[in-house]
């Protein structure tokens, strides 16, 4: 079964969920992405992305117990599905393929 195509933010979120494991919920994913990419994504943008990944079957979610610090709301925890894991491997393979043949001496210097 072919893996659905994903965009760069979707891939970054998918990787963050995979990295965070049991602690993967919206706020943690947002902080992880912010620390790694230096970009300040809005909370709404993160949840839209996670929702899209869930719609594509790459993630699944479940609600935690309500928490006082969230005003009595649950955290929505995300988990990478098998399809999601395949999508990560496919993305890694494609990335490696793209870098293949580009020697270290030909790579542009960081700005």
């Amino acid at each position: 079964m072919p893996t659905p195509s994903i965009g760069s933010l979707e891939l970054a979120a998918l990787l963050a969920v995979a990295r965070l494991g049991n602690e993967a919920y919206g706020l943690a994913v947002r902080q992880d992405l912010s620390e790694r990419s230096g970009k300040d994504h809005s909370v709404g943008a993160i949840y839209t992305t996670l929702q899209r990944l869930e719609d594509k079957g790459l993630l699944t979610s479940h609600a935690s117990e309500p928490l006082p610090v969230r005003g009595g709301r649950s955290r929505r925890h995300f988990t990478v599905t098998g399809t999601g894991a395949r999508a990560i491997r496919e993305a890694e393979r494609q990335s490696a393929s793209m870098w293949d043949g580009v020697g270290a001496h030909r790579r542009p210097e960081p700005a």
Partner: protein
Amino acid sequence: MMTPLNTRVSPAFRRYADINRADAQPWIERLLRFIGGDLAFAEDVLGDLMEERARRVERDGARSANWWYVYEALRSTPHVAWHTAKRGGTRGRARVAIVVAGMATALTIAVVAIGGEPAPVRLEVDGQRTAHAADGVIVNSRHPVVLAMRAFDATGHALNATDVQYQWMSGTPISVATNGVVTCSHPGDALVRASLGQAIATVRIKCRPVRQVLANMWMQFTAGDSSQELNFVALDPDGLPVNRLAGVLRVRDSSIATLKNGRVKPISPGRTAVVMHFGEGEATTQVSVYERVPSFIGLRADQRFAIAPVRLAPADTIRWPLPQGLFWLQFHRPSRYADIPTIAMEGPIMCTPNADQSVDRLYCLVRGSGASVRMTHPSTSPPPEVSCVECRSRHGGPIHWAQYVEGALSIEREKYP
């Protein structure tokens, strides 16, 4: 899949949430919850916002955390709206439509309030700031003056008219700057075009330079008198009278006299002045208003401006006491040909000019008690140069020795002797 909202929030946590929300900008939370409806998406976003806010309160303080909360909630609003529009069904889309319409209305109102001023359709000369007559703007100065216009929209509301542009069109060549500064070097009329957007008006500038204003030095009244016309004339650089005037014409103290339609009306005893200022010409007329008294006997200290009637038969003499201090003393004749009595001062008093010089206005200083003024009929003994066949006064008017000498004596006391 998404868990329904109501099964995820317990009543105890609701209470905690209400307390927590009270200082967490509930209006923005209400907005997001209104848009999101009962979808879990909005609650997930709000939960993250609240959790992060709680961390920031400890780290940065409540004020900073609240600002962050509002900012992030507003950033997330489009995502919640988009999610609701996609998954919220008809009611969800209706809620989004309501919010979008409300925001569009608020934005329109804000744009109109800030800078979306309606287009001007009419320009008028600003009568408050420009000397405007029915047939044009009168300019009496040879120095630069500023034209001022008022702009109105189609509904008649006044608009900002600071950007009106001006341009000389025809007539007397005068200097007209685009910002409305006009310089009238010569007498004559000029047409000037004023424009603001699509609104255009033609203004007639009536250049009437005034170099000098001549006016009577004094006007004297008794309280209760009727008004008198103010006599003055404005002259142009060639010495010719100018009959179109716009400038300053006012009474300094309207509790003493008023000025209306070019006439001065006395109000109460005292001294004031009428100031006239047109172009480069300026003049002042002193106005005195006297209180009518039967004589100077018993004048009070507060009766600084008083006038008393004088009627002298041949050989009659009147002697009135004078108060201490500085004052003007003047005899008012009923006509320029009427004689004045012989006026003499007695006691500790000095006057200028001397009273024996037969003048009718004296400035006097009384330095002690016991000073008085003595008025005597001038014909106690006929002057030697007058024949008995045809008698004439020194002014050339007819004189009859048996007649009374009539008039009035006024006093104007200085406030600070």
